[in-house]
């Protein structure tokens, strides 16, 4: 039944297809709905008392999907400072798998934007960002994360090539000796990544390849995820954002990973969306718009597409 497929599609993916649901479910007769319930075992369970029951977990997931549009709007209308402060707070609450968001905010915002987020955090939560990050994070990444959220990087273009070269060597050594000492806890690694300006770090990134033969993040593996994300956010942010977007839209994405789609588009639409779209196309061979068209539904999809095509 074509309608059945359309109905299931309306509930599959990111967000829900409101129009399709109105068309299909709204106009359905009781026997259509019975048929729907009987033929979607992942939505409805056959109850022992002879009726088809909604799968509770599925309803919960549906709730998230319906809320995706609302959350996007709320986040979009929010002041960027409040937005970033709330994202950090949420990441701290969610725990280690979400610490990448803290890295993202600390490293991809401008110095003034990060200062703004810190001010908003004071207002919203009566604590400083660094205070909460230091209190809630206990692992080896604590030092780096506290330093990253405390940074107020110089933003001028001036770079000392000699210093960049020697710091590339320092990083290369620290990563090479990674089995003896975790590079994320190395005080020089933290110093370089958390205090140097972004232009300087881009020069370090370039020299690193000359020193070690590979790019820094290629020398880091999954066990150094936070360190890897730090380097990516600081040196190759558009590639980083493209990856977050792609992971969010993959079929088996974890529910936290899926939130990356909303987060990246809302927080970058006014900043560097054009560059991110280009990089996405380079990396994945398909336009971001097309991918969102495929993977998202309804108002949520329309809103995202509107955000990313505003200046076309």
């Amino acid at each position: 039944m074509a309608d059945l497929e359309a109905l299931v599609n309306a509930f599959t993916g990111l967000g829900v297809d409101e129009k399709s649901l109105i068309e299909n479910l709204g106009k359905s007769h009781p026997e259509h709905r019975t048929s729907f319930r009987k033929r979607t075992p992942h939505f409805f369970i056959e109850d022992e008392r002879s009726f088809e029951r909604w799968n509770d977990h599925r309803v919960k997931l549906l709730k998230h999907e319906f809320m995706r549009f609302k959350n996007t709007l709320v986040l979009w209308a929010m002041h960027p400072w409040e937005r970033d402060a709330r994202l950090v707070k949420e990441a701290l609450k969610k725990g280690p798998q979400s610490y990448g968001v803290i890295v993202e905010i600390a490293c991809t915002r401008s110095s003034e934007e990060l200062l703004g987020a810190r001010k908003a955090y004071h207002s919203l939560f009566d604590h400083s960002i660094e205070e909460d990050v230091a209190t809630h994070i206990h692992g080896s990444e604590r030092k780096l994360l506290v330093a990253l959220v405390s940074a107020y990087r110089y933003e001028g273009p001036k770079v000392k090539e000699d210093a960049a070269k020697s710091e590339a060597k320092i990083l290369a050594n620290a990563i090479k000796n990674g089995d003896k000492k975790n590079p994320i806890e190395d005080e020089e690694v933290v110093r370089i990544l958390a205090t140097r300006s972004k232009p300087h770090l881009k020069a370090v990134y370039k020299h690193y390849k000359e020193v070690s033969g590979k790019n820094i993040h290629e020398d880091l593996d999954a066990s150094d995820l936070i360190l890897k994300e730090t380097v990516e956010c600081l040196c190759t942010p558009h590639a980083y954002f493209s990856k977050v977007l792609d992971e969010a839209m993959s079929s088996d994405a974890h529910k936290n990973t899926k939130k990356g789609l909303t987060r990246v588009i809302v927080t970058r639409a006014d900043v560097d969306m054009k560059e991110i779209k280009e990089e996405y196309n380079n990396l994945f061979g398909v336009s971001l718009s097309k991918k969102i068209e495929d993977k998202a539904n309804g108002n949520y999809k329309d809103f995202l597409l509107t955000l990313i095509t505003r200046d076309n």
Partner: protein
Amino acid sequence: MASLKVPASVPPPYEDAEQLHKAFEGWGTNEGLIISILAHRNAAQRNLIRQVYAEAYGKDLLKDLDKELSSDFERTVLLWTLDPAERDAYLANEATKRFTSSNWVLMEIACTRSSHDLFKVRQAYHARYKKSLEEDVAYHTTGDFRKLLVPLVSTFRYEGEEVNTMLAKSEAKILHEKISDKAYSDDEIIRILTTRSKAQLNATLNNYNNAFGNAINKNLKEDSDNDFLKLLRATIKCLTYPEKYFEKLLRLSIKKLGTDEWALTRVVTTRAEVDMERIKEEYHRRNSVTLDRDIAGDTSGDYERMLLALIGHGDA
């Protein structure tokens, strides 16, 4: 309270600029005139004078001061004329280059300025030195000192008065544990001292005293030669009783004890517009003589006159 005395009716900035320009003319410089103007203008007024001076004479007032004055007096006038954020940036930058006392100056600036003012220092540092403050501090320090100083200059403490008493208890306990283990640069000590709000820290340290019978600094006195411990004690003092910290610094400087030769100039110029009156009270309480008298006894000439004017002495 500030000790700075500004006259009830202040001449317009162009008049001050003109007088200052006159003060540099001729054979010598009219230091008295410089003192009588600059030592009686607040930061906003001094900024205006600098602006007007630059517009009228095409040069930076501070560059002209630099040419005309010498030694302690010059340093005092130079530091004083700078806008507070610029001044702190200048002092911090100087501190990253010097070997002795440098850590102290960095700690002092990081701990005794408000969150807002410390951030203004970081902004002034960008503008003047084309680098970030934390970048330079990190680069020029190592080990435990870096571990303490970089977070201190980078923190943006919450400034509310709220206190969590349970947290104060638990963090006092943590501090006591680490100190008893002689783990003075432990991550937890650093975390508490460099991220908690001043109100929360005060509560924690009071709790420490109540629970363990000694003020924390008493427990940290164990090794008097340990430079890191000295800095740690001073950090705690700056965060909780800055006027006591400054009193001691002045006392040691005047009595020529300690190695911080520029302390007198630095404390007077950086606190005259902030809490010099409180520091004077503390000085009198501790030493039974006024700061004015000891400065007069220890210094001379224009340097003495400038310092006395800044601490609000008489009609100087």
